[in-house]
Every structure is written in structure tokens, then in C-alpha cells.
């Protein structure tokens, strides 16, 4: 049997997550009971997906890649980033796989491994989260300006009337709102990040 010892590799105690196959790892990192292992490759998910046309792989194909251990290709796929979280596939899946939540897990893993083709979506998520961590509330004006300047500068002139419309109708505020318990929230999130970090080594 080939063991790390016979190969003369470092013999540190392997972390739990490293013993898992890719499929098991994705499943273990998903909230709730993902049932990803139960996928029967029927393709109902891809057939139900309103955005499948823009995806590199349908969810079915992506899950086959996870089962085959194709880590790099699976994490590079744009599929989780195109997923609109509409849950059509989730309610139609005969095996009750938590497909949308698996997509969230894959996004997190892709960010962690810095494996994505286009940074627009990860940047948007991160900017949104930065604002929430700073204020406790979402801050649309700050989010929109930062995001559009970086990723869609050419869309800005066309967007200006809409932005001004939202501002003039007071549907967007220039100043952010901060919750009273922001220090409490920051302490909670700091602890949560430590827990998350400890979990995956």
C-alpha cells in the first residue's frame, strides 16, 4: 500500500478535510445536509435553469466533475457565478440535492483558491460584504459607485439617469446607515471567521 511514509512525504497529521474526496469536501462545507452524493445525473437541474445558456457547465455536469475530482476545472467554472439562486432546480431535483447551496460553497472555495475567470462577481460579493461588515447594513450607493467604476465604467453614462432617478426619488441614500451594535456585530463576525478558518486548517 502506498502511504505517505513509503513515499517519504511529510508525516504531519492530515487535517480532516484533506482526507475527503472533492465531492465529500464540497458536501461537508455546505450548510445543512447537501445530499450532493445522491445526485443521479438526471439533468433536471440544467433543464430547469433559466440561466443555463450562459453557464460553462450545467449543474449536472459540474457535479459529475466534482465526483471525478476535477478540482481546478470545477472551481474555474463560471456556473456558480451565473446561478441566480432561483431554486427552480432545488424544488425539482428528485434527489433533493441542495443545489443552490452547493453553488454558494463552490463560490467560497473558488475565492479561497483564487480560481475564477472573471473577478466581477467575486468583487461584487466582497464589496457588498465589506459594506455590511463596516455598517451592519447594505450601502447601495457606495456599493454601486465602487463596483461600476471598477468593472463597468463604460456603463456609467447610460446608468446615470437611473441613478439620479433613484436618488431624486429618495430610493438610494448617499450616506450609509450604521447600526448601534456594530461593535457587537464585528466581534461576532471576527469569532465566526476564526471558527471558519480553524475548520479548514
Amino acid at each position, binding site marked *: 500500500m502506498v502511504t505517505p511514509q513509503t513515499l517519504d512525504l511529510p508525516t504531519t497529521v492530515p487535517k480532516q478535510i484533506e482526507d475527503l474526496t472533492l465531492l465529500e469536501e464540497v458536501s461537508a462545507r455546505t450548510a445543512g445536509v447537501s445530499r450532493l452524493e445522491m445526485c443521479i445525473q438526471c439533468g433536471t437541474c440544467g433543464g430547469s435553469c433559466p*440561466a443555463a445558456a450562459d453557464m460553462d457547465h450545467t449543474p449536472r455536469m459540474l457535479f459529475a466533475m466534482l465526483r471525478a475530482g476535477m478540482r481546478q476545472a470545477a472551481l474555474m467554472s463560471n456556473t456558480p457565478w451565473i446561478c441566480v439562486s432561483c431554486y427552480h432546480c432545488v424544488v425539482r431535483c428528485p434527489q433533493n440535492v441542495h443545489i443552490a447551496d452547493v453553488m454558494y460553497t463552490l463560490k*467560497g472555495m473558488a475565492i479561497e483558491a483564487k480560481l475564477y475567470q472573471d473577478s466581477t462577481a467575486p468583487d*461584487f460579493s466582497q464589496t457588498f*460584504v465589506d459594506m455590511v461588515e463596516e455598517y451592519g447594513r447594505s450601502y447601495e450607493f457606495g456599493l454601486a459607485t465602487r463596483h461600476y467604476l471598477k468593472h463597468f465604467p463604460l456603463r456609467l*453614462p447610460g446608468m446615470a439617469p437611473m441613478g439620479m432617478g433613484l436618488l431624486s*426619488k429618495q430610493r438610494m441614500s448617499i450616506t450609509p446607515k450604521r*447600526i448601534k451594535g456594530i461593535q457587537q456585530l464585528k466581534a*461576532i463576525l471576527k469569532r465566526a*471567521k476564526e471558527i471558519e478558518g480553524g475548520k479548514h486548517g
Partner: protein
Amino acid sequence: MAKYLLYPGCSMESSAKAYSESLAAIAKPIGLELEEIEDWNCCGATEYLGISLTPAYALISRNLALAAKQANGNKVVVAPCSACYLNLAKADYYMREQPKLGKMVNEALSAGGLSYEPGTLAIRHLLDVIIYDIGLETVKSKVVRPLTGLRVAPYLGCMVPRPDYEKRWSDHEHPIELDLLLKALGAEVIDFPLKTHCCGGHMTQIGPETAFELIRRLISSADQYQADIMATVCPMCQMNLDAYQTETNRYFGTNYQMPIVFFTQLMGLAFGLEPDTAGFGSELVSTKRALAKIGVEIAETETAPARPKKSSGLPMPKPLPRKPELAEKSEAEK
């Protein structure tokens, strides 16, 4: 009076203020007493879940912990926003399905002196509470200005009827609750086939072409069914279909002018409220033509002040009047 804990969510204070204004206006007549969760925070929308699991669920659960602390006998949290509703319900459900998640979340919450026992609260959407607790009879009894002749497309979007962890809705894909409510208001409700299809969600920000196609499908379907107006239960749906309709039109070379408002705004009108009390006037696609059908006068939605003039080199497609009689009218005005 039934008393509920309200989780408004960030958009209710900004992009969806028409929703909160109209909700405030209709709550009293139907006997819906709402108590806001103090110092609630953002639910993370669909963004935080894609970045890191424990922090995302801890962020959501701070709200659950605050609500449970504040709950004084009433254990029902009402969320008017679809994404907020789903996130709160999802956290509560997954922490029960997978106790390990509950343990991690509570460990994080303890850093802020909070805790939450999963299953303590019932998380429900506003429409669910209005239909199943308040009841259609109560709603009907308050109608003084029936929406007779107004063709409404009921549009729920995705996250209210799906995944529906607690089986609260009549169907995942074709639920009838919103149809029943709008019928109770006297409206002519079209059998809208795309009523739970996706508005594109955050794709307007990160992959506009994907979003525009989803928006086009919804608007063109409602238009084919000759709906005068769409009624929604979700701030994101309203925002995408209303604020991005011009961009969608420009992208496809179409001229749709399909107004979309919150169902609570139509309740307000049916209850006899003035349009501005019911939150009208902040929509970007004008509701004037639709409201004229039920004899309600509203000022034409004023165009945004910074709308580029023709000479600025940014041509906008001119909206075509849809009905021939209106075309004649506008010709005559010239």
C-alpha cells in the same frame, strides 16, 4: 390584534421605500400589528453565503437572536423582502437540519453576548401572514375602491415560494396566494405563467446580459397577456424590472413600458388611500396609464433631472404609446 416581529431589511429603507410606506398604511386597517426588531442588521443577501459559511450564518443569526430576545410571547418574525425571508428561514432550518452549524453559529454569537436556539421563531413572509392569519375576508371588507378593470400580473419571484422549508405555500412554481389577494381587491388577475420566474437578482450588477434576458422574458410575457401593471412581493424584483427596464429596452431595442409595484400599494389604493400614501410616485416606469383605469389620477412620473439631453450624444429609445387611442391623443397634443 395579532402582533408580529418585523424584520424590514435594508431595501425597505431605500430602494423599496414604496413597500414600507404602503405597508405602514395598510397594516392598521387589516389589524396587522408589527414591532420592528431593534437594531437588526443586513441579512447578507445572496452575497455573504458565497464568500464564507460561518460568518454568513452568524450575520443572519444575530437577527434571530435579537428577535428571540425581544419576542414577548409572539414568536413570529415577518419579513416583507424575499431574500431576507429566505435567509432567515434558511438559517433557522439548516441549524436544525445540521446541529453542527447551529453550534458554530452560537459560538460566534457568544462573542457578542448573544445566542439562538434554532426553531424558537417562525419565519414567515408578509404575504403568507396576510393570507393565512389576517384572511381574505378581512382584506375584502376593507375594499372601498375595487380595482375593477385593472389587469394585474401577479409576480412573486423565486425566493418566496422556493425552497419553502416549512411547506407554507400552495405550490413551488404556481402558488395561488397572490392571485387570491389581488382578486379580493377586485382586480382582473391574469394567469401569469412566469409568476415565480427569476428577475435576474444580482446579475444586473455582475452579468447584465444574463439579467436583461430574464427581465425581458418577464416583461414581454406580462405585456403579451395585456397586463396593465405587475404586482410583486419582492424589493429586488421591483428594482430589476422597474429601474432596469430602460436599459433592457435599449439592449433589445424594445419599447416596453410595464409598471411594477408592490402588492401592498395596490391594497392601499383599494382601501381608498391616496396614491402617495400608498407609496406611488417613486417608481421609474410610470403607473399613470394603469391607474387611470381605476379612476385614480397620478402625476406623470417625472423624468430624472440628469437624463441626458438629445444633444449629449446618448440617444434613448422613445417609448411608443401602446394603445392606438393614446397615440392619437399624443398626436393631438402636439
